[in-house]
């Protein structure tokens, strides 16, 4: 059975200015043990999608529809108690900023132990301490015996993220959701944390959903990539295809706007013109068409008809351009 199956997820936030359509018609599957990246700019809906998986979207007026099937059970129709039993045990989360994610008032040992105790009510204090010590050691915190009784502020950012990861893994989750796990960290620490996530994944056999805006992070550890734009998935492909044969003009734009070792010296970075659209007033048709270099070539179709995800080569893309043009996007034809 598919581990996690998201079907036609829609998330809308009601605000005084109007409805914010944060996520629209997002569907994807996660198989046990695989690593999937959700990539996009701020406001693309990637974090909202991730939060929805654990029903962590808070606010006065949040409307969610669709299905989030975890081993066949729909997270969205679960009772509060049922969701609580899923949180931190079947699906665990790593947040972006480790500096604020840990509770400043309790020792890290207590917080790790607590994560275990919530889902194992019978655990004794001694067991919890043992578990905390082991977890700290596993994620590479030196001197765990001394560190276990320290408070979060006594650790560096990278160390704290290790602790957050240790906490997330303490119940052997089937799915680990990492929401920008390296964004708030020093560049030198980022690679270590990614390595740790990959290592832990190998040990625990968890599937990983990695939310990021950083294509470098994607290339590092993921197998599959979903690119989101304005609340929709615009491309879904293997990591190799995403980089070598992007099949959506937006993905192409993302790749062209960052420098890599393959960028020839005379080649210039091409920023994507314009800014992401307001989620309150989305453009008609394809949400990307006002910024798309190819939209004009299709007449008015892009501004009138929203493209659905379809198979293009070995990827899936939501674009009206004909297949052969999509497959040749990186070939300089702009």
């Amino acid at each position, binding site marked *: 059975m598919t581990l996690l199956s998201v079907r036609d997820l829609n998330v809308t936030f009601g605000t005084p200015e109007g409805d914010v359509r944060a996520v629209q018609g997002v569907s994807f599957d996660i198989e046990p043990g695989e690593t999937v990246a959700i990539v996009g700019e701020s406001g693309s809906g990637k974090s909202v999608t991730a939060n929805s998986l*654990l029903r*962590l979207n*808070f606010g*006065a007026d949040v409307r969610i529809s669709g299905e989030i099937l975890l081993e066949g059970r729909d997270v969205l129709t679960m009772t*509060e108690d049922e969701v*609580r*039993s*899923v*949180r*931190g*045990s079947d699906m*665990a*989360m790593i*947040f972006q*900023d480790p500096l*604020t*994610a*840990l*509770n*400043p*008032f309790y020792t890290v040992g207590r917080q790790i132990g*607590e*994560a275990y105790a*919530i*889902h194992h009510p019978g655990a004794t204090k001694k067991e919890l301490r043992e578990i905390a010590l082991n977890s700290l050691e596993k994620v590479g915190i030196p001197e765990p015996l001394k560190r276990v009784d320290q*408070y979060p*502020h006594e650790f560096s950012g990278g160390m704290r993220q290790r602790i*957050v990861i240790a*906490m997330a893994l303490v119940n052997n989750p089937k799915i680990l959701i990492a929401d920008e796990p390296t964004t708030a960290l020093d560049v030198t620490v980022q690679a270590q944390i990614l390595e740790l996530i990959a290592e832990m994944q190998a040990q625990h056999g968890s599937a990983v959903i990695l939310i990021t805006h950083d294509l470098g992070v994607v290339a590092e550890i993921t197998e599959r990539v979903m690119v989101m734009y304005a609340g929709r998935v615009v491309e879904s492909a293997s990591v190799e295809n995403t980089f070598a044969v992007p099949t959506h003009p937006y993905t192409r734009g993302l790749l062209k706007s960052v420098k890599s070792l393959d960028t020839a010296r005379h080649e210039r970075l091409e920023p994507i013109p314009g800014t992401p659209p307001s989620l309150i007033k989305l453009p008609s048709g394809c949400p990307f068409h006002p910024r798309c270099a190819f939209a004009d070539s299709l007449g008015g179709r892009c501004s009138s008809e929203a493209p659905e995800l379809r198979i293009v080569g070995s990827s899936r893309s939501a674009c009206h351009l004909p297949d052969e043009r999509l497959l040749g996007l990186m070939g300089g034809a702009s």
Partner: protein
Amino acid sequence: MFAVVLLLIVSAFTFWIFSALPSDPAALTCGKNCRPEVIEANRERLGYDKPLVEQYGAYMKGIFAGRTYGEEGASVHCPAPSLGYSYDRHECVTSLIASTLPVTASIALGAFVLWMAIGVGLGTLAALKRGRWQDRLATGFSVVGVSFPTFFLGLMFIMIFVIWTGILPFPRYTGITENPVDWFMALILPWFVLALISAATYVRMTRNGILEVMNEEFVRLGIAKGLPRKRLIVTYVMRAALVPIVTIAGLDFAFLLGGALVTESIFNLPGLGKLTLAAVVNSDLPILVATTMVAAVFIVIANAVVDVLYGYLDPRVRVK
């Protein structure tokens, strides 16, 4: 250590400021039709002719060693710690304060317990039921509470509970050791007056504090861990939200210990506040200097206690 230095500065400043007042303590020692020679003689007798520094020195010495006021034959000895002698009341200031302090302490303690219970309780309720009627009721209460002056609420209470319905007798203070029931009956109204007015601010502080903490990332992680709501609210949200409230509450309590002037006057409670007020009316400088200093001592002590408490409550400021 710092607190001691601070107290010295406060006492010197208080002493200086009251000596700079236009009222002449020597002139107050004899009646209206006093001859200038008598005033001068009294001034000399009381030591008000000496330089200020010397007066301050004698005063400080009195605190530690006790002091004899007046001249031989008609002298009064106030044992240490002597805070002066009131020529208006013919009593040692220390014993005046000693007899009024328990009254004020009774008022302050009861009011403090009540206002923390009401303020934090209602504030928490408002935050948890944000936007619903409980929230509106609590915030409404806090708006009304802060806008009521103490004297108005006090008089209203007397009118409603004592005069109209007669539920309570007119407050007459009795020591708790003498008759706890009378003590309680006399204090219940002032407690509520002070508590309701202070609680109004605490409702707001608690509500806003809790709502702020609820948006913290670590609370979201707590939810993502699967913490049950009750435990999350108590061990994560309240724990964090109450730290700043405890700090402010400590200082407010100390401030109240310095005397609740208006409330004590309205309810005819012989506390520090009433003593101070009477001293102001009678230009009784020794009492004013002393009550000011006592109030300052409470604030300084409260500051020190709050500092220690803060370190205990928040590991981030704990001194290693």
